[in-house]
């Protein structure tokens, strides 16, 4: 009988070895699945993991990795703060939507005026929108002890309806022949979030993601707030004794997460997506939760996890195109990767022990 024994400290070796192990396991099982589907497994794996980075057209797909990873990293970094403190904001998708709607409203209100102030105003609006939306579950938790997992999740659906209303009503493009959806902000110079250096995929959102990672790292490892966050997550009672105000911590963590999610929405609506539409949100807020955990709630880990996640998306698209793999197989493959990554994490915090009898 195998049983788990908690390590006194997370294993340094396994922290680095487990992701590699998971990727290898996914390649084996995913390769089996591709083989069952009648595709060359080696070619399929190569297409997903290698081609976007070093393949024939990697000069295009590498920047795209940043475009895809940017919002994931930005949101996940914010979420990780809360997760570390035991604050479960799973409604980032809603905060992302509201941030985008706020920002787009500001941009569209200014249309067609040109001013250097418009873009910064949209950035602020996005952050404010996301923060406000995150404050709802935060305040309810602090004031009434309401479970923030559930409130933040409910608010995603509310946000989706607000998005639909905005796309069909007030933000609808008056020149759009009646089709739902707003004007294209990326074609409105004052509001557009374009590549800073053309062709690199480096738009303001990616820059913001990198800044967030750096700040997150400093905050968690050097700042008193980071200490309080870690303490609250690991030993809530000790945190209370040492003077951590749990309510304040909830408000700060949710606020940061909401602001970053709102920013991600803003950069997306002004740049890659371009417009508010009914289907504007494509699940970044939920995927970011997975990214946060894959990155072990550590900013640098999140950076890598976000890039890995983006790689499977881009590589999956390439595999669809060049190998004719159905999108379902790619989703299944991603699901496998996530499962393996989550599964092997146990080795970081626990060691395996053989024992003769079962301990009940």
């Amino acid at each position, binding site marked *: 009988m195998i049983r788990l024994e908690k390590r006194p400290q997370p294993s340094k070796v396994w922290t680095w070895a487990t992701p590699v192990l998971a990727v290898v396991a996914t390649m084996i099982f995913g390769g089996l699945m591709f083989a069952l589907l009648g595709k060359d497994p080696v070619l399929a794996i190569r297409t997903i993991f290698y081609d976007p980075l070093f393949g*024939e*057209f*990697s*000069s*295009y*797909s590498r*920047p*795209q990795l940043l*475009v*895809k990873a940017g919002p994931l990293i930005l949101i996940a970094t914010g979420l990780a703060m809360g997760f570390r403190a035991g604050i479960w904001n799973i409604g980032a998708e809603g905060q992302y939507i509201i941030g985008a709607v706020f920002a787009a409203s500001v941009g569209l209100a200014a249309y067609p005026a040109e001013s250097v102030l418009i873009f910064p105003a949209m950035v602020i609006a996005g952050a404010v929108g996301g923060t406000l939306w995150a404050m709802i579950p935060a305040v309810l938790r602090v004031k009434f002890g309401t479970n923030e997992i559930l409130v933040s999740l409910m608010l995603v659906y509310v946000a989706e309806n607000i998005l*639909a209303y905005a796309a*069909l*009503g007030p933000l609808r493009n008056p020149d759009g*022949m*009646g*089709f*739902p*959806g707003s004007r*294209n902000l*990326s*074609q409105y110079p004052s509001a557009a979030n374009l590549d800073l*250096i*053309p*062709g*690199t995929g480096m738009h303001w959102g990616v820059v913001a993601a990198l800044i967030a990672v750096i700040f997150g790292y400093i905050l968690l490892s050097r700042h008193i707030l980071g200490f309080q966050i870690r303490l609250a997550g690991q030993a809530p009672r000790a945190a209370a004794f040492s003077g951590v105000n749990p309510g304040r911590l909830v408000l700060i963590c949710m606020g940061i997460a909401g602001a970053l999610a709102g920013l991600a929405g803003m950069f*997306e609506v002004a*740049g*890659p*997506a*371009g*417009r508010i*539409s*009914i*289907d*504007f949100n*494509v699940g970044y807020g939920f995927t970011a939760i997975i990214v946060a955990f894959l990155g072990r709630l550590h900013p640098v880990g999140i950076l890598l996890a976000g890039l890995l996640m983006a790689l499977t998306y*881009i590589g999956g*698209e*390439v595999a*669809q*195109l*060049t190998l*004719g793999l*159905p*999108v*379902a197989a790619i989703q299944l493959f991603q699901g496998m990767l996530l499962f393996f990554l989550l599964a092997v994490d146990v080795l970081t915090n626990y060691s395996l022990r053989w024992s003769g009898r079962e301990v009940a």
Partner: protein
Amino acid sequence: MKRRTLLATGASAAVAAAMGMPVRAEGHEPLKVGFIYIGPVGDGGWTYQHDQGRLAVEEHFGDAVETIYQENVPESADAERAITQMVLSGADLIFTTSFGYMDATNTVAGKFPDVKFEHATGYRRDHPNVSTYDARFYEGRAVIGHIAGKMTKTNKIGYIASFPIPEVIQGINSSFLHAKKVNPDVEMVVIWAYTWFDPAKEADAAKAMIEQGVDVILQHTDSTAPQAAAAEAGNVFTFGQASDMAAFKPSPRIASIIDNWNPYYIKRVQDVIDGTWESGHSWGGMAEGEVVIGEITDAVPADVKAEAEAMIAAITAGEYHPFTGPINKQDGTPFLAEGEVATDLQLVQMDFYLEGMLGDIPS
């Protein structure tokens, strides 16, 4: 013309090489045709029909053509990347099959002038290598509206609508107009589902209509759920939408309006092969074989069936336009004078109901 500067950077040298590839000049390599789909090919409706078109292209041209596709492409940043990657993997002609790809299609087209783009249901052609295409679904709606007007006993026809956009409003008006012609007492009950595809919601919409006395249902949403709801209720008739929905023959599904992209896709691929491809807007209908009325079953009386077939023949021959005056708008103001035929511009801007319709279009 706005050209983003992807090509100006050194990093894009490979891109430039790729787009410069004179694929067809060699004469041996097959023409590569790409398709971007909004849904899965297994949706049984909109995307399924486009994919049937892709398969028809493969069958028609054999080894001369190679097709690739990408399904479930969101109308977001992902669309632009999907289209670009398709270009990079060597596509010479790309069909983007949803309205929401409009901006992305035009952006990518600006960067790759040697590749041809075809955007479904859109209206923007910013570059000479972009065409748009659509189908005159309202022609088919006229025929099923006629059948519906004849078949209803309660004089209540239901219409499950998706979004209040001109294409959908054309369909409502066209079917209502022709139902009313054969049955002056008919009234139309419209439910806006605000979705193209949500089986459970469509089923509920159909049931709500049936409970309120509707006995013929038209749908502008793509699932078969309304058909099933009608089958369950009994004595309710429906029409297949997008695909034939033959599983519900002979009743409740008494006919269908099928999106048939095969002829257009084959024609455009041929144009590229011949070097005669030009930018333009194609709005084909029954004459072009793009809008097809599926088998009218025996649940429809023979005389009604004959009338419907006569209308199909007249529209196909160009002798009859479904929007021929005199027609008034809902508020009583004239839309078309006696004998006047609606222009394409009037149709694509249609944002009002016709006289006799009850209720308002949501705004």
